[in-house]
């Protein structure tokens, strides 16, 4: 496929809302200046890692689809170019994000470090691995009815040759975690009782890994943990939720691993009542805001940010061939500066044309469709709150507003100051218009 696309079919497939861009992809556009002061999160993450004498755990947050994975892939490349050994952990593939607990995360990190070292041909002291393995087998396999699993693992070790037993056992654990079986609960309970041991042994392995990468001429080891922000938000019924438990109450566990980490966390956590506790555990936090496309107070178009999104589209579709001028403006307006929503809107618009260009009318229909999508997903009791967010351009630190950020009905912007606003597509829904009228009457 030749880019920027000049045919409808190429254009359609160049605007896939499901694909984050790999580092170095020609479609990449640096949106930092449009995201505002905080937009240079990648640069700041990199700088802090290079300056800090101690291992640093930095949190990275942003709305779903705002470009986090694309930026983290860029950070990976930047760090690698600078001489770091980077392990990129895809939490979505390694964990059951609907049901994630600290032991699962720690073991996923150990597993990924081990795998990355092996793939790079680096080794750590085999005694350390054996110690970890024996301890893990004793805790997880030998103490209960899992003897048959142990036998299976051991017999596999005999026949599979090339893959070390440690990796096999880690892979088996990962399987338990992702399949949500009874084994998962039992294994997790056992590990939970031995969590400090798990941390100590994991830390020893990570220390050994850091030595190995330094010996190989690298500056240090860095873990980038992507998609952990997708961990399910569950009300635990006692005033706490699953995300707060993982990142706030048990956050020290992540920090205790003893290496540089960049970890994605749900954006809603930065707006929760526990944000002060989170800050106490993780003082280094970065937020990837939306691209500002309108001024805060007046909501007038902000050309600088919009031009970046024009460029984002132009890298995919030849603007001369692909869009009528009014069409592009309409699509950018309705996206709220959210990169994936812009891609979704463009895809929607393709459905309403026989061939390029996307017309103003097709763009209008695409916007209408996104507006309708929002009509489905917003709970009835949010309308009055959304009206208040629209007026105030800010959110409260409570569960309802957290949900609004989670569902993308409210977007976060930063450019000099920091504010939130209702998604432009939501603003067009009659329910919000009515709620705003009611709010004005009651004021």
């Amino acid at each position, binding site marked *: 496929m030749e880019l920027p696309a000049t045919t409808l*079919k190429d254009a359609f497939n160049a605007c896939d809302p*499901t694909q984050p861009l790999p580092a170095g992809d020609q479609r990449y556009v640096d949106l930092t200046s449009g995201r505002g002061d905080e937009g240079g999160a990648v640069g700041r993450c990199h700088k802090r890692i290079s300056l800090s004498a101690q291992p640093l755990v930095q949190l990275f947050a942003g709305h*779903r689809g705002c470009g986090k994975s694309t930026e983290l892939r860029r950070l990976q490349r930047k760090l690698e170019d600078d001489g770091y050994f980077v392990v990129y952990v895809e939490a979505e593939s390694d964990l059951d994000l*609907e049901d994630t607990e600290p032991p699962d995360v720690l073991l996923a990190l150990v597993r990924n470090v081990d795998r990355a070292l092996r793939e790079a041909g680096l080794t750590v002291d085999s005694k350390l691995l054996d110690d970890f393995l024996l301890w893990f087998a004793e805790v997880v396999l030998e103490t209960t009815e899992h003897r048959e699993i142990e036998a299976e693992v051991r017999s596999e070790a005999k026949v599979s040759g090339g893959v070390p037993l440690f990796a096999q056992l880690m892979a088996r654990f990962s399987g338990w975690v992702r399949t949500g079986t009874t084994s998962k609960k039992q294994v997790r309970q056992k590990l939970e009782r031995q969590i400090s041991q798990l941390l100590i042994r994991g830390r020893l392995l990570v220390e050994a890994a850091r030595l190995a990468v330094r010996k190989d001429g690298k500056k240090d080891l860095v873990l980038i943990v992507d998609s952990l922000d997708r961990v399910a938000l569950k009300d635990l019924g006692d005033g706490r939720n699953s995300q707060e438990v993982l990142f706030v109450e048990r956050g020290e566990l992540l920090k205790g691993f003893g290496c540089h980490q960049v970890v994605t966390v749900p954006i809603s956590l930065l707006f929760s009542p526990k944000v002060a506790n989170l800050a106490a555990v993780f003082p280094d936090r970065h937020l990837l805001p939306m691209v500002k496309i309108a001024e805060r107070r007046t909501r007038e178009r902000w050309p600088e940010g919009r031009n970046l999104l024009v460029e984002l589209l132009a890298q995919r579709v030849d603007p001369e061939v692909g869009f009528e001028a009014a069409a592009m403006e309409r699509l950018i307006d309705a996206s709220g500066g959210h990169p994936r929503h812009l891609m979704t809107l463009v895809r929607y618009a393709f*459905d309403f044309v026989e061939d390029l260009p996307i017309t103003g009318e097709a763009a209008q*229909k695409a916007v*209408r469709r996104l507006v309708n*999508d929002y009509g489905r997903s917003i*709970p009835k009791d949010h309308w009055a709150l959304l009206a208040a967010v629209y007026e105030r351009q800010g959110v409260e630190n409570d569960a309802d507003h957290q949900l609004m950020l*989670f569902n993308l009905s409210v977007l976060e912007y930063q450019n000099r100051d920091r504010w939130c606003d209702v998604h432009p597509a939501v603003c067009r829904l009659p329910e919000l218009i009515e709620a705003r009228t009611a709010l004005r009457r009651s004021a």
Partner: protein
Amino acid sequence: MSRRLRAADPEQDPLEAPELVPLVRLLTRVEGFAIAFLECNVPVSAERIASELIRGLEARGRRGRLVRLEEAEENLLGHLRGLTPPAPPGEALFVLGFERAIPSQVAFPPALTRLNRAREQFRELALPLILVLPRYALDQLSREAPDFWAWRSGVFEVREEEEHLERMVHDVTRPGPGDYGNLSAVRKREHLEVLRGLLAELEARGDGERARGELHYRIARLLRSMGQWPEAEAAAAKALELAREAGDRRAIAAAGHKLAWVTQDRGDLEAAEEGYRKSLEVGEALGDKTCIAASYHQLGMVAQDRGDLAAAEDWYRKALEVFEALGSKTGIASSYHQLGRVAQDRGDLATAEDWYRKALEIDEALGDKTGIAASYHHLGMVAQARGDLEAAEDRYRKSLEIKEALGNRPDKASTYGQLGLLAEARGEPAAALDWTIRCVTLFPEFPHPATGPGPQHLARLTGISGKDALEAGWQRLTGGALPAAVADFVARQLARAEDASEPSPPTARA
């Protein structure tokens, strides 16, 4: 609003129907993986349109396949991976019936959490996936599987032809036997899907208050018979609201009556009585004898629930008189049954048995399975009260056989509860605990009002057999660990009983 598609005209190439063009364009342009949603509220139309689209796509050199999910499929990805023959890359899969795994009363059902969790793995299918869903399920998916939803490439809507829709609404709401209690659980669920689909279709059009009210009323009846009481109450309230908007007095009486019924289920006798009296008033004004008799009957049940047996008998006899005048055998059997319950509450077992047997005779002649099961259940209670435990068990089991075949959970709960009490009377506490666990686990909520004193019995029996027995029994019968809410409830009940220094005595179910 999204683009609305009308049901395709059979004379026309479906892919050239203007309403279908956007979806067709998406499917013919996409390379590899894509997710699209097709909203269609009427299952039969969904299948027809998807089939036509596939035929049209094939005529254009693209492949397509219909995937029907006959049962609630929690693991959609696993199902698609296991298709025979396997789906080749690029083949458009139209998935029908996924809504069966998205029950509207359950938040974050496992099917949606799995869908959300496995988003990345769907990409490996490398094909366009079109989930065909009714509006309620699609709305729920957008909220409860937000990551999967975020990857959509299109959302399309199919609207039913007006004439066809009217005919379908007429067919499902016309007066008839309509005794949902005698439908099996599967049939009830299917019928509920049809009713909800038609309702969503009418709501999307924003007209047809009268028909929508009638559909809400039917849904309320159906949900009540399924033990989904809060949802039934909401549907009945909506039916009443729409009947009032339409100024349809007969519908107001029917919906008001149903609403009173569900408020009575949750124990609000005052609200229920008020509702029945209003319904009676409308019935009298309209000269609607069926409505009058039904209101008398229910007012009798309210009086009985309050323990005012004389008033209850009075209302039942008035109802019986009207039912006899109408020649309504079902009504007569119901009155006999309730008169039996009054006699039973008075301890007059001989009279109670007489009434129940008379009711049973009519129920059997009518083939009214719900009635037969209720009669056997109460005949069992009479036998148990007399100490004839063998006869009691025989009758409970006859009742249970029918109830299990019908799958009506509130009815099953009452018989499970009685079998628990029977086992306890025989000195078999382990069996008693098992029956009681079966009773209270029929509903996801605990305690559920349809399980009557089941939760209290559970606590008492745990006091006898121990918490370990409860945990083991729960694990064995449900396959899951004892929920914290149940453990807390039991602990609180036992602490209360200890404070009172004596265990609460067993009470028979009404």
